[in-house]
């Protein structure tokens, strides 16, 4: 069943959240979704490990959340709009997350954006 269903989106450094990603990241993203509710944020704050026990994450997904490895979360099926809820919970910025995913510091990332953003890649 090697049907190539999607048009090729072979864009370096870019994760297209298609059906395969949806399936792979379902539990991870749905866990993130629960952080929209204040009571759940309190519970996550009180005990992250215990909170994650309630969801059917793979060990790799679990580790990526605990370690705030934003790029790894993407690779494991995370969708940035969902996983960013963890960053919002942490109070870190989109520049922090963007920097970590692209291997630079938050300040470097912020300055890159002020300078007009990333204009070339790969």
């Amino acid at each position, binding site marked *: 069943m090697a049907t190539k269903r999607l*048009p090729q989106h072979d864009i370096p*450094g870019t994760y297209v959240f*298609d059906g395969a*990603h*949806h399936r792979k990241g379902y539990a991870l993203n749905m866990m993130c979704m629960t952080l*929209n509710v204040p009571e759940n944020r309190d519970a996550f704050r009180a005990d992250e490990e215990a909170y994650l026990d309630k969801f059917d994450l793979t060990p790799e997904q679990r580790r990526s959340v605990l370690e705030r490895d934003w790029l790894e979360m993407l690779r494991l099926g995370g969708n940035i709009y969902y996983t960013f809820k963890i960053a919002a919970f942490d109070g870190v910025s989109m520049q922090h997350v963007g920097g970590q995913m692209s291997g630079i510091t938050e300040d470097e990332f912020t300055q890159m954006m002020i300078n007009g953003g990333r204009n070339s890649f790969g």
Partner: protein
Amino acid sequence: MAEVKFGVATSHVPAIGVAIDNGKEDEPYWAPLFEGYEGARKWMADARPDVVILAYNDHASAFDLSLIPTFAIGVADEFPIADEGYGPRDIPPVFGYPELAWHLAESLILDEFDMTIVTDLPVDHGLTVPMSIVYGKPETWPVRVIPLAVNVIQYPPPTARRCYDLGRAIRRAVHQWDEDLTVAVFGTGGMSHQLQGERAGWVNTPFDTSYLNRLGSEPEALAEVTHTELLKEAGSEGIELVMWLIMRGAMSREVREVHRHYHVPASNTAAGLIIFEGT
């Protein structure tokens, strides 16, 4: 008769909402962006549409992976402000226009658009930031809003062509409504940005400039831009630009550009704004 007279396209970056809510509009980082919004607010103070039909995307607020509508139209009396993970924005609730929204839903479905009809719809920054951009911080919003939520965060979004055609169908439906109403259609999201991956921070100003230049005069050409091209040129989140074509499709063939603004950055995004009046 109701008439679509105005079209507004604008980015809907959450950080813009945060800046407005926290009075940071004059800070050095934000001032160049908000200076460009002044003209939009002045224009809006005169234009005063009765109803805004606002095309935006939900960002894991009202919808999640368990159910993803391609096009959802909000028919409720009121839309609460969503808690996106750090408490709801402290802004007034958004009041709908159920009679007109139902007319649109019915017309669009009979016109072969496969709408999802939604009553329970908390609205997130995708809808509220554009409201703040053009209306500032009023006690209550001086307009009724019909939310049109478009999936762009699960691949595949609707095509640019489909969005443009939806806009045209919205125009037909509005013009069948027997009440004297001035309607503005908003298309939101974009411009070029990529929040994720090693390519995070992607901005493509030549692409954005071209998009702004062509939106008024060559919408049919923009309706042919593929998802692959949008992902590559505008970035993975820049694909939101398909929603601008809903606005453009809802406008007259010829439009007059009344305001334009472009600034990099707003958070990780190239922020654009363009306003059209119909002819």
